[in-house]
């Protein structure tokens, strides 16, 4: 299972990298979104999957062993942060488009004396 997941992560990272290298702002932002998906999966997979119950104590059907709770806590933080950053960058792109009239990064290089 872990190996399969890692292969999926590899595909996601490749796609994300390709998108980040594009000229269009939205594609770059989508790329970062896919990249954060890949990283979340990666953290969870490295922590070994399906080795126990959900990390909820006092559950009557199960009494351990539990899945590793630490990666889950990390991912939870990461999801929220990446959401905040995606929202911010999206609005930034929107604002940049309104000011400069283009969403092409190659045209947003700025001139010589900026």
């Amino acid at each position, binding site marked *: *299972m*872990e190996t*399969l997941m*890692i*292969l*999926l*992560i*590899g595909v*996601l*990272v*490749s*796609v994300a*990298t*390709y*998108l980040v*290298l*594009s*000229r269009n702002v*939205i594609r770059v932002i*989508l790329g970062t*979104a896919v990249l954060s998906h*890949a990283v*979340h*999966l*990666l953290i*969870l997979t*490295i922590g*070994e999957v*399906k080795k*126990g119950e959900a*990390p909820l*104590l*006092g559950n009557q059907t199960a009494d351990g062993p*539990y*899945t590793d*709770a*630490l990666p*889950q*806590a990390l*991912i*939870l*933080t990461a*999801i*929220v*942060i990446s*959401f*905040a950053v*995606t929202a*911010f960058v999206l609005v*930034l*792109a*929107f*604002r940049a*488009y*309104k000011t400069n*009239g283009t969403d092409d*990064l*190659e045209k947003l*290089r*700025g001139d010589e004396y900026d």
Partner: protein
Amino acid sequence: MTIHLAIILPLLMAALIPFIYKLFTKIKIGWLVLLVPVTVFILLARFIPLISSGETRTYTYEWMPSLGINFTTYLDGLSMIFGLLISGVGALVVLYSIFYLSTKEALHNFYCYLLLFMGAMLGVVFSDNLMVLYAFWELTSVSSFLLIAFWHHRRASKAGARKSMLITVSGGIAMLAGFIMLHAMTDSFSIREIIAEMPALTNESLFIPAMICVLLGAFTKSAQFPFHIWLPDAMEAPTPVSAYLHSATMVKAGIYVVARLTPVFAYDLTWFWTVTIVGLITLFWGSFNAVKQTDLKALLAFSTVSQLGLIMSLFGMGSLAFHVDIDASTIIYTQAAFAALFHLMNHSTFKGALFMMVGIIDHEAGTRDIRRLGGLMTIMPATFTIAVIGSMSMAGLPPFNGFLSKEMFLTSALKVAEFDIFTLSSATALVPVIAWVASVFTFIYCMIIIFKTFFGTTEKLPQDRHIHEAPIGMLISPFVLVFFVIAIFFFPNVLAKYILAPAMLSVYPGLASMTDMTPHVYAWHGFNTELWMTIGVVVFGFVLYATLSKWRNIYNTIPAQFTLNNAFNRVLAEGENVSSFITKLYMTGSLRHYSLYMYGFLILVVGSYFAFSDTFRFSMENNAEIHVYEVLLVLVMAVAAVAMLFAKSCVTATVLNGVVGFGISLFFVIFRAPDLALTQLIVESVTTVLFLLCFTYLPTWKPEKTSHRQKMTNATISILVGLLVVAVSLSVLYFNEFKTISSFFENAYELAGGKNIVNTILGDFRAFDTMLEVVVLCIAGIGVYTMIKFRTKKGDDRHEN
């Protein structure tokens, strides 16, 4: 502790001066500042009896013991001379500046920088640790930069400050490299320990490079040829600064380092040749160029360059004493170093007085151009007295102290010429010749200072102001200095016994006893070669001065484009061009390029590590079982992700991104992470809505206009990055050295009173992380709000649609 106090006091006062200036606007803060050098001087003077008996004092304050860097102060004869000069001349300069600078100037800045310099300079001469010495050394460069640029509205001030900074700091870095090499050889930063170990290490391969690097630092700081070009430009500083930093103290820091490290490097003859030759060239070139100057301060600057060369060459000659067996007949070779120390003191007295004299003329007449000066003798008799005494001493005439040290200099030069251990003995015969020629030019520019300024007619003087004698306050300091010029001539042996003799022990530790190395200084030696040389200097000097207009044209023989200044400017301009060219090569402003650099570097470093080391491990033994629906889910997500690359519209791409996101939340469910699944579901929904919302304001997605080659590069890089991540992840998965720490969190109920472990980690164990996460959310929220709410200024909004 006293010596630490002496260093700290000026630095502390430098920090306080701006506040004191704000508090007491009525009084001249110079008087308050004056207390600092006077206190330091008294503190140091109390040690004179102790030091003159040949003893030393060390105090250690452990600063960075793990790196072997301690703030150890070392008080011996050599540092005493410099300490007294710094505090003594410092006090006189501050006194002078109180009357020189108008209260309208930014006095708090001026005194802050000046005190900063004073503390740094005291730090340089009292530090035993080379690293601490270096730190203070650079601080003197910085304070010198600030003081030269004090009138920063003037273009020339800024240019001069930049030039001095560039030259002295690059030399300083070379010196740092030299110090590190010394550390590599001796495993110590302490000067005393290095001196003790050094004689055995002269054959080390680092010995010569270390010497060259240290000398580069010393030569740049002490304005030796060809680095002297910064000193004349530094004359843009206010005159008290020129008198203090650029003649009496800072430019002697290089000489201090040479004197201090003589017992380290002098065992090799390279030291003798380098220091002596560079010193002599500087001596000649400085005096030769001083004659052509028309600005009195520039003239004094070149004369300072020349005199520094003289002192430097004397230390070079003095290093010969390490190559002979010291007995009664060869002790004479140490006399060069004695003359150097003696001239160092004398130069500070007469040159300080001369700078203050020029400052007075500038202050009263409004110009220091000798073409516009003349006949000031009757108008300013006191200033004239100072000028005559200072110049005569500089020219080496009795009854002034310059005569004594100049005679000793000629003696040493003649002795070196006789030195016969070299195969190239004819080369050393040139030493007295260069010394004599330079002395003739020195005599000429001294005549220029006196005659062009104070004799002749008053017609050329600026007519728009009433010129009169300077106020008494400005005359005190130069008069104190010229008093010493005369007093040292009549009682040189008092100075020799109490101040110079212990310093000889620092230059020649353990070579001979203090009394053996301290010659008795006489003003009259009978008619010997030295006296005839001096008489020759006077005669030839007068003749050449009288015929100056006839041979002045030789200064025009070097075309302007071949001067050192021009070379320096060219190098600087070319350096700027080249570096901006290189920067523009890779700083293209394109996000794609920057990302490519990062990914490329990642692949290069991590990928080549995998390729060349046997780290890749892979095993499927511990893998969990796979169900069919899981494989299907993986396939769906992979296809959705790849399809994003070919999506024709941005809505499609966003929906596909959503598919990946919801797929992940399903995996969270499968992997027993219910909290994550819930959060991911919500966040994914909101993100998708946000994307779609944004698209209504953004233009429709046009096909990428990238070339085929760029696409191929992007694809290759992407696939390589993906493979790399897979390789790293598989290896990490295989690596099982460390136990997981999460069993600790399974006591969540006892420790934090919660049954959901993930929640207790977020809300209790790592609550600070969560709090900061909320801060990040807040900042992002504020950013989003302001960007949407506030419109750009009118006129900028022309792209609104």
